[in-house]
């Protein structure tokens, strides 16, 4: 008991220390949906000698509020505080104007093991929409909270959430010893930020492997750009491409066995595919122009890329096996750095109009381009795995920050560091570590 208390205190103090020392991303919602779905989230009952360090319902409430798609019923409007199915009085929640109600319990089962139950109700139909039980270690409680948020999001909006995901990004800090660049990985709400690489030189283009276990990126070392693949958990690092000239723009094939990348070893920037097992390189483009920023279609058949073969950078699509090259973008001064949504129906890209760079979404079936941002230096867009949000880099007051926008343009958020710049974001695939128990 006493030992647990010490552990708890240690954990809390470590938490505070890491908040003040490591740069933590704070997220603010800058634009919400017109009408959010009113949801009541009742604080969970807690049983056991050790209070869990992570407040699961508070994390859920913060996820939902941040998404801009929900309005949370304030606690003072709660007429009852149910934790179990038998305690729910639907009339109380109709009076509080909640359309949905979430309740739950957290019970300590052993020193480090917790059981979490969660139920979601439709208040007007008086129906249970979801009921889930998790049995996890203390360090998985935040992930459980994000999974509960995803369930609520999907049940109430009909679209999957992307809370139980991570983001990778690069920070740049000016210090007394010069500039430090860090490649960091954090939960989608900015928590649990860990540095997986620190460098005096720039780091760019992080790309998650399809299983979320590795990140490919470009780092400048010994005065040259190089492509590395690094394990997110074990930090083991492999040098993938270190040819003369540019080594850049890594992109994973959907099966995770190949990397498309840009190399200029044969004279000018061309797109290659590297088989990660055999290390065999296959060259896909051959001309005297710039070809770069490859990205795979989710079915693995096509690669889209940036090329200035028509004078200015535009997006093109080619077959991975054959030649046939098709130009996809015609609007604006230029278009670059495109990547697919998970369903393969849209690509997000950087589109330039009158010298300003915005984030756009191009619907592939009819080539309609929707511009989603209005700031002048936006870049590096990537879709969330649910295809509903796009994470990108922008600038506020001359400082680099991250922003996200829903693919319909209605919800916006900003991700800021207290100090320094943050840039080059990449949204992870779904975190499949934790299996749902329904």
């Amino acid at each position: 008991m006493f030992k647990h208390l010490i552990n708890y205190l240690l954990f809390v103090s470590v938490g505070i220390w890491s908040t003040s020392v490591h740069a933590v991303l704070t997220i603010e919602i800058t634009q919400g949906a017109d009408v959010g779905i009113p949801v009541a989230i009742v604080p969970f009952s807690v049983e056991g000698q050790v209070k869990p360090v992570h407040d699961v319902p508070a994390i859920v409430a913060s996820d939902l509020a941040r998404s801009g798609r929900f309005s949370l019923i304030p606690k003072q409007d709660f007429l009852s505080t149910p934790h179990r199915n038998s305690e729910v009085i639907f009339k109380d929640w109709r009076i509080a104007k909640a359309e949905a109600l979430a309740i739950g319990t957290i019970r300590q089962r052993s020193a480090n093991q917790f059981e979490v139950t969660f139920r979601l109700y439709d208040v007007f139909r008086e129906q249970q929409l979801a009921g889930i039980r998790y049995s996890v270690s203390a360090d998985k409680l935040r992930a459980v909270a994000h999974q509960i948020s995803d369930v609520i999001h999907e049940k109430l909006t009909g679209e999957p959430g992307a809370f139980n995901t991570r983001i990778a990004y690069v920070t740049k800090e000016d210090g007394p010893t010069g500039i430090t660049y860090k490649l960091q990985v954090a939960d989608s709400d900015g928590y649990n930020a860990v540095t997986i690489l620190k460098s005096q030189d720039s780091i760019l283009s992080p790309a998650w492997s399809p299983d979320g276990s590795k990140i490919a990126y470009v780092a400048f070392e010994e005065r040259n750009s190089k492509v590395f693949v690094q394990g997110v958990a074990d930090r083991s690092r492999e040098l993938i491409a270190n040819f003369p000239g540019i080594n850049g723009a890594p992109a994973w094939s959907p099966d995770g066995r190949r990397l498309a990348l840009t190399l200029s070893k044969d004279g000018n920037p061309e797109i290659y595919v590297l088989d990660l097992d055999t290390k065999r390189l296959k060259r896909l483009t051959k001309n005297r122009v710039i070809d770069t920023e490859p990205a795979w279609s989710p079915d693995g058949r096509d690669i889209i890329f940036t090329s200035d073969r028509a004078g200015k950078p535009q997006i093109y699509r080619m077959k991975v096996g054959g030649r046939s090259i098709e130009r996809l973008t015609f609007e604006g001064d230029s278009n670059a750095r495109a990547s697919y949504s998970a369903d393969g129906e849209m690509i997000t890209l950087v589109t330039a109009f009158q010298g300003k760079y915005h984030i756009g979404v191009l619907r592939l079936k009819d080539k309609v381009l929707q511009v989603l941002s209005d700031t002048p230096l936006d870049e590096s867009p990537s879709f969330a795995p649910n295809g509903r949000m796009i994470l990108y880099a922008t600038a506020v007051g001359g400082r680099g920050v991250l922003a996200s926008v829903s693919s319909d343009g209605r919800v916006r958020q900003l991700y800021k560091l207290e100090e320094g710049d943050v840039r080059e974001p990449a949204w992870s695939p779904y975190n499949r570590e934790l299996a749902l128990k329904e």
Partner: protein
Amino acid sequence: MKNFSYIVLALIFAVGVAACGGGAAVQEPLVDEQSTSSSGSSSAETGTADSGSMTGESINEQMQMAMAGERPTKLRVHFEFDSSAIDSESRAVIEAHAAYLAARPDVRLNLEGHADERGTREYNLALGERRGQAVRRMLRLLGINSERLAARSYGEENPVATGHDESAWRLNRRVEFVY
């Protein structure tokens, strides 16, 4: 036409190098170098007039000093947006470096290409390389062995000016001569 003037220049440098007695010139006392370079100064003026780029005596002086084996002080050339075209001002700088490299055959040069912050990072990495290669190609046309010239790109990663307007962007779109 342009190529022709390069060939003329290259020949002038070749003559200049021959007049300096090749690699031996490096070991010669400073006074001797100056005396040999004075014979080549009129040729340098002819060459610069052909390229139609010189604005004042300072560049002629640079050329004379370069031919005498003294490193040019201007170590950067700049570019237009999304372009690797070399303008007349940059050409004069590159010619001075060619003269210096011709006078100092033991010297190697790294050309570091950079871009401004507009456009995507990976495209700018490619653009920076294209700029470095454009300078390298011109130096080669001026008779410098390509094995002495390396071109690298830093894209938009290492700006010299931190502003977000054309005056900063202009400074950042550059190739640096790193000896």
